[in-house]
């Protein structure tokens, strides 16, 4: 860039922002994002909010529209408390996976920060939402906002009709099972359009109105006393129930005998939201890494073009460095592995491997090393991986050395943790595999499935916890959660812990034994 044009070329000066500078910065960032990095994004909608509104927003799980529930109030009080005592800063940004993609900018931010947030959220996250296969398959960005609006209105209507307490009771129980309310293996049905939903609700209401208890008293025509036929019926019903089922919430919604139609609808709402957030939980490292890499690259490009002042760039770098800071395990600030740090470092590493590989990189990554094609490599990684597979495929020895990663194995019975591997030749594979595994939600969350229920008999619902590596459930919360299952099911519920490898039953508990 010729030096003389620099002054007129600047996007902004000083720290104040107005809509004109925001828009000018946005256009410049967009040009770099689309033309240089080749990103592909949903249309953007940038909303300016105050810090109080930011607190509001993230206490309702980051959704702009959310039904009311006390747990969101609890989260608010908690966040507010931390914020006021200075224990936690506010997030600079919040972005919603919707079409158009909504990004919140805080009014208190400086112009440099606004530019950073725009690059980070409106392009980094936005690109990731639109292109990553998990989000493409499992979420419906164009329907979520209208669905949330429906959910909010529906729950308000239920509260008016059945009372806040009754609705709260259902929501409490549903929230407890949110983690067990997602389809992990098969794709969930698309969110139905507003019209369909309307039609469905009308049908339900019609059925409610025309329901007549008298019909129940009609004698059944074929009173079969044949035991074989009864058994066959049972088998058929079980088969119809599609057991075993991993989606406990879905099973209760469809099968529970005691739930009213509106209660089923509420379960469905909670389940849909859980499903919507499921991909986000599997792509923390990638999503944040992608956004961080994108903002870093874009802001540096703009700086190189002379469109950002050195002062602004220093501010941006300072905040960038804070975000990707990774304290060591023995540091009092250590909160676990920082997804921003890991994701960003891995993506930078991929760029390095593509452009300037060592011989070690050539051994480990023969396809990409030295290809020079880092843009395509990254676009491909962002589109086709989740955290677990991404780490398994791309974590390089040099990065393991840089982070000085080591693997600790911890057996409950031992007094010591053992260092299983460190960052050396023998340890790379093991560390990479273990780190990848730790991001596999399927492997780390308790695997609880509906096994059996005799609908015509005692209606006893049998759940099974498949125990891996001997990791049991925390008992107090387990019992409390089982009570919630019972609340939704209405009859006895039992949970059996079965060791996945041996098939041995390690524990059994039932709501019959748990005090209310």
């Amino acid at each position: 860039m010729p030096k003389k044009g620099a002054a007129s070329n600047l996007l902004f000066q000083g720290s104040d922002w107005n809509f004109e500078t925001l828009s000018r910065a946005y256009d410049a960032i967009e040009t770099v994002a689309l033309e240089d990095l080749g990103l592909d994004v949903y249309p953007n909608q940038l909303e300016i909010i105050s810090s109080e509104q930011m607190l509001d927003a993230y206490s309702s799980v980051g959704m702009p529209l959310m039904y009311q529930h006390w747990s969101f109030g609890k989260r608010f009080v908690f966040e507010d408390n931390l914020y006021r005592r200075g224990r936690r800063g506010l997030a600079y940004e919040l972005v919603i996976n919707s079409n158009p993609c909504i990004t919140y900018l805080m009014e208190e931010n400086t112009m440099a920060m606004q530019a950073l947030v725009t690059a980070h959220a409106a392009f980094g996250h936005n690109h990731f939402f639109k292109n990553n296969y998990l989000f493409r398959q499992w979420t419906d960005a164009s329907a979520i906002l209208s669905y949330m609006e429906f959910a909010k209105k529906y729950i308000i209507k239920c509260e008016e009709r059945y009372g806040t307490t009754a609705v709260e009771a259902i929501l409490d129980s549903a929230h407890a099972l949110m983690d067990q309310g997602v389809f992990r293996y098969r794709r969930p049905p698309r969110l139905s359009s507003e019209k369909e939903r309307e039609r469905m609700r009308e049908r339900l209401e019609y059925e409610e109105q025309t329901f007549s208890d008298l019909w129940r008293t009609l004698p059944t025509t074929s009173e079969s006393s044949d035991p074989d036929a009864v058994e066959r019926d049972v088998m058929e019903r079980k088969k119809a129930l599609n057991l075993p089922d991993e989606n406990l919430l879905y099973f209760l919604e469809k099968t529970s005998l005691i739930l009213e139609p509106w209660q089923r609808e509420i379960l469905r709402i909670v389940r849909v939201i859980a499903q919507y957030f499921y991909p986000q939980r599997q792509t923390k490292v990638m999503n944040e890494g992608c956004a961080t890499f994108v903002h870093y690259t874009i802001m540096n490009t703009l700086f190189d073009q002379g469109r950002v002042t050195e002062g602004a760039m220093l501010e941006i770098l300072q905040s960038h460095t804070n975000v990707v800071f990774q304290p060591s395990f023995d540091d009092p600030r250590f909160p676990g592995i920082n997804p921003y740090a890991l994701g960003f470092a891995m993506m930078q590493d991929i760029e390095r491997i593509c452009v300037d590989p060592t011989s070690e990189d050539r051994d480990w990554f023969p396809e990409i090393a030295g290809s020079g094609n880092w843009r395509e490599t990254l676009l491909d990684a962002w589109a086709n991986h989740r955290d677990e597979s991404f780490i398994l495929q791309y974590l390089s020895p040099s990065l393991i050395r840089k982070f000085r990663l080591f693997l600790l194995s911890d057996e409950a019975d031992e007094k010591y943790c053992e260092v299983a591997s460190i960052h050396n030749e023998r340890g790379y594979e093991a560390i990479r595999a273990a780190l990848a595994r730790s991001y596999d939600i399927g492997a780390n969350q308790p695997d609880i499935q509906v096994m059996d229920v005799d609908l015509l008999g005692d209606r006893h619902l049998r759940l099974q916890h498949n125990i891996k590596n001997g990791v049991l459930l925390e008992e107090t919360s387990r019992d409390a959660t089982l009570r919630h299952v019972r609340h939704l099911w209405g009859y006895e519920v039992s949970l059996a812990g079965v060791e996945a490898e041996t098939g041995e039953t390690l524990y059994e508990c039932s709501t019959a034994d748990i005090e209310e």
Partner: protein
Amino acid sequence: MPNFIDRRLNPKDKSLGNRQRFLKRAREELKRAIKEQVKSGKITDVDAEHNVSMPARGVSEPTFQPAGDSGERQYVLPGNREFAAGDRLPKRSSGGGATGAGAGTGQSQDEFQFVLSREEVLDLFFEDLELPDMVKLNLKESVAFKRRRAGFAATGSPMNINVGRTMRNSFGRRIALHRPGRKEMEAIAEEIARLEVEPNAGAKHLQHLEELRQKLEKLERRRRRIPYVDPVDIRFNRFEQQPLPNASAVMFCLMDVSASMGEREKDLAKRFFVLLHLFLKRRYDRIDIVFIRHTDEAGEVDENTFFYSKQSGGTIVSTALEEMLRVIRERYPAREWNIYAAQASDGENISGDSERCASLLHDDLMRLCQYYAYVEIIDERETEIFGTTDNGTSLWRAYRTVDGEWPNFQMTRIAKPADIYPVFRKLFGKQPAVQVRK
């Protein structure tokens, strides 16, 4: 071109409703926590702000969570400096480094605290004492004020004009501005009158007269311009609200701590003492509390010992009364102190001693005390039987005779917190009618 939307003017506090729901839910828990604190804290502490950590029971959100203390796990951690493969690390109790896997996904919310204001604490405390709202308001209201002279003010109501101070100001101003005095003007007027009647008026004489007239007119104009009392002179008496100076009071807590008094009885007794303290606090600036516990012998102890330390032995109630008498004579002369006494007991007493208690009250204590309240803590099942009759323990029967004679004596049986308040209603309801000492 992106779509910018300014949402700053949108209503804030979108989560207000959620917070209210949360607090409503938390209320029950808070009540329990306050009760706990009343039980374990000092009597005077009830009337203060409290930190209450949010208890988890009613507001927990349980989910199926892996237990931290079972099975095998593997963690990948950053920042290795010294370890080699095969090294062993002693486990820390809470597993400081053991968060690697679930960081960010697990919702570990450490306990957070509320600060309840004095009013909120009292509200929660009163709730199961079943105090009527009027009384609650009275108790929360802190001090009575009295108007006191406090210098002068330039503004105020006409009623409060201070004439002396106003006139002094006016006088000073008149001197400073040379307001012509009446004497001076009268002298000139006289001179004029004298000159006017003089027959042989020469030109010089007439000129002098004219000068005098002009001078008088000038003086009169000046006099009119400078009023005798100007609004700036006016001073008002200023009054200030001053807290009413209160005499001191001493409150004697007497309790039977023999084996028959269990946790429940002590808790009820404590609530009774707390309430008495709150009532007294409304009236007196300074309240001393004397704790006297007794089994078969009595002793003055500190609050902690009073409620928590165990002592075994029989029961001789009169020892406590004697001890109280001793303390009064030594430290709290009835001339200087308002003396209140509250006695809690389960009514058990060694035979023959109850009469002695009654006579101690009759002869000495009731003369010294402003009020004496006796509560007998009974079993909830016994309320049916004893609720209405005068029959009961020997102590109860003996105290009955005192009750008839002294209007400042109250006695009741209580079985649950809600029974405590009526004692106070009787105690303080009679107050205007009797002036015991003086």
